[in-house]
């Protein structure tokens, strides 16, 4: 092997430190973590079915409608503003990226970077919710006026509720992490939070396609 530079050797040292943390996990904790991960993934799958049942309703109503967007009181409803939706999507997807780096920084024991990335995620999440609020106030239809409005507000509302819960969840994780609830090898809560946040992102991919692009 080539002679290692000081930077590389510090990276190697850090790597060894992380490896040691990974592989010296208390077996009881490892098993518990395994069970909780299974349970959490099953929960996300079930949650996915909830969205799918409303997406099914939307597809059914849309494909059986004579025109789309539907006509209400003789006027066809306008399509949604794709540009604004795309911008808001970028905010949410960006928060997925920052969340990924938050967890990675935690794994590499970089507390400051972790706090910065997680803080960015929370800010972006709130930004997305504000964008949704703007979208709702300027929407060309109402919740009760048509099936378009019913599907749009119910599905994005359900999703927005998930984002809202997610933001609170991330704030709690941040507080817990800084209070020392998680250690270098015991941080299942952070993994679950990351999974949840990515799940919310993935659902939005489907919703953005269904309501804005299609």
């Amino acid at each position, binding site marked *: 092997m080539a002679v290692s530079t000081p930077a590389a050797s510090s990276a190697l040292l850090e790597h060894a430190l992380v490896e040691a943390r990974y592989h010296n996990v208390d077996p009881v904790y490892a098993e*518990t973590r395994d069970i*909780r991960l299974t349970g959490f993934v099953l929960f996300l799958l079930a949650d996915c079915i909830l969205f*799918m049942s409303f997406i099914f309703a939307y597809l*059914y*109503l849309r494909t059986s409608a004579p025109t789309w967007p539907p006509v209400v009181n003789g006027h066809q409803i306008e399509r949604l503003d794709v540009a604004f939706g795309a911008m808001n999507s970028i905010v949410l997807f960006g928060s997925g990226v920052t969340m990924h780096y938050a967890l990675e920084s935690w794994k590499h024991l970089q507390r400051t970077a972790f706090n910065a990335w997680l803080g960015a995620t929370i800010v972006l999440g709130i930004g997305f919710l504000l964008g949704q609020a703007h979208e709702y106030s300027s929407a060309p239809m109402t919740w*009760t006026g048509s*099936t378009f409005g019913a599907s749009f507000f119910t599905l994005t509302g359900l999703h927005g509720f998930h984002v809202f819960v997610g933001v609170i969840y991330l704030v709690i994780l941040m507080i817990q992490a800084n209070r*020392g609830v998680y250690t270098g090898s*015991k941080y299942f809560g952070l993994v679950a939070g990351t999974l949840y946040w990515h799940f919310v992102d993935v659902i939005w991919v489907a919703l953005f396609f269904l309501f804005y692009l299609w």
Partner: protein
Amino acid sequence: VDVAAHPHVEQHSAHDHIHPEPTGFIAKYVFSLDHKVIAIQYFITGLLFMLIAGSFAELMRIQLMDPKGTFMGYHTFNQMFTMHGTVMVWLVLIPLVTGSLGNLVMPLQIGARDVAFPWLNMLSFWLIPVAGLILFSSFFVGAPAAGWTEYPPVSVMQGVGGELWCLAIIVVGVSSTLTGLNFLATIFKMRAPGMTWTRMPLFTWATFATALINLFATVALSGALLALYLQQAFDVPFFDPARGGSPILFQHMFWFYSHPAVYIFILPAFGVISEVLPTFARKTIFGYKMIAFSSLSIAILGFAVWAHHMFPSGIAPWLQIPFMIITYLIGIPTGIKIFSWMATLWGGRIQFTTPMMYALAFIGTFSFGGITGVFLACVPADLHEHGSYFVVGHFHYVVAGGAVTAFFAGFNYWFPKATGRMLSEKLGQAGFWLFMLGLTGTFLPMHWLGLEGMPRRYASYEVFAKAYPDAVFWNRFESVSSFLMVASVLVLAINIIVSMRSGRRAGNNPWGARTLEWMISSPAPYYNFRKIPIVLDRPYDFNEPLPYRNLDDETDPYPVPTEAGGMHRQPVPAGRA
């Protein structure tokens, strides 16, 4: 690690860290985390709801003794059949079959100390009485009267009662989903070493298939009912044709869950039968793998048959034919099970105990209900039979003749394990004959009444009785017979009370069965197993020695409970470990 080849493997895992048993009344019996106590809670709750829903049914039967139907008002009658169906399906069958039997038996059969998430298990149970309270509170504001299926537009026209109905069933749905999640995680992650998938007892296999449906179908029902609730409470037009919505959409969403829901009751029933038959025939189960995989294939196919409930609702003919054919396909795995059970009995040494009587009766009653189901799945036949008493007869043969009969088999079989006492065999047999006579007398005539054209859900059948005068006799016959089933449940209740006080002590294994739950004392100790057993083979081979190592030795002391460990698998608090 192949544990069979290395029986000396020492385990050191979360299995070995246990908390001391709680001593306070509340922690021990009310908000218990112990799956065995929760199972008993489910049983008592389910039985109470069964008495309530059963009395609704009896009130309907009294009404139908007279073709004019003067015993109660027509709207009251509508409320009665709505509440009877709702309570029986969601507050009796689900708590009894999956909640009670699943909770009691599955963790013991896989050699676990508890389910994966005991706290969630407790929550699942307590949601059931909450749902019951929400549902019954609707009697004060006008109980729902649109039938247990609550089709719009009728269901959205009935005011607050309908909203309460939606909320109650959403709560039950959350409870079922959490149970499904819990059981799946338990079966995935907490099987004893050596218990591979093809060594799992068949009741556990059935519970696994049920949990899959619970997790994936129940959420879809919650979605459907949430949409219905939004329309009732906030006038959101999902199902309102005037604003582009579709009532048929609700039927699609509802049956996408509710057809698999039938398998939520019947798959554990299959599991019970697969345990009881080999034990009392003293013979290896025939076709272990086929029975296990047929449960899975029923669970999977069950997601693709829902529209067979909707043939007359106006769905496209090209859609009807595939749904008919897939429904027929379910006959194949079901037939595999029926024939495997009969082959298990062939050449066995059969003991006619009460659980065995129920199990044998199940094969007949369930097959009958299954065969009438084939008639109903056939599009042309269904167009004639839909909405008639033929459907009611079919459904009750499957549910009362299938799920409830198998539940009684399982109840009589595992009661000694849950309580440590044997049930009275005399009372058990008396209850069995009362139930079977009542079942046949009540539901068999419904088939020919339905074929003659008697519509279901009518509070008065005066017009039909003019066309078919025998209807009066048969309806009275049904009403009288139905009281035999009530008598049978009362005999069961007496049996429980008498046996709890003075029943014979059961010992570890009163039936000479071979699955893991019978290898420990009755009732099972708080930690289930002193040492986690090691499993070497399937449990059903009655000619071989028991396929377990590391079984309980009565002389061994319990492991010392540790505060830091987690029998209940709570995470070890940070900084402590």
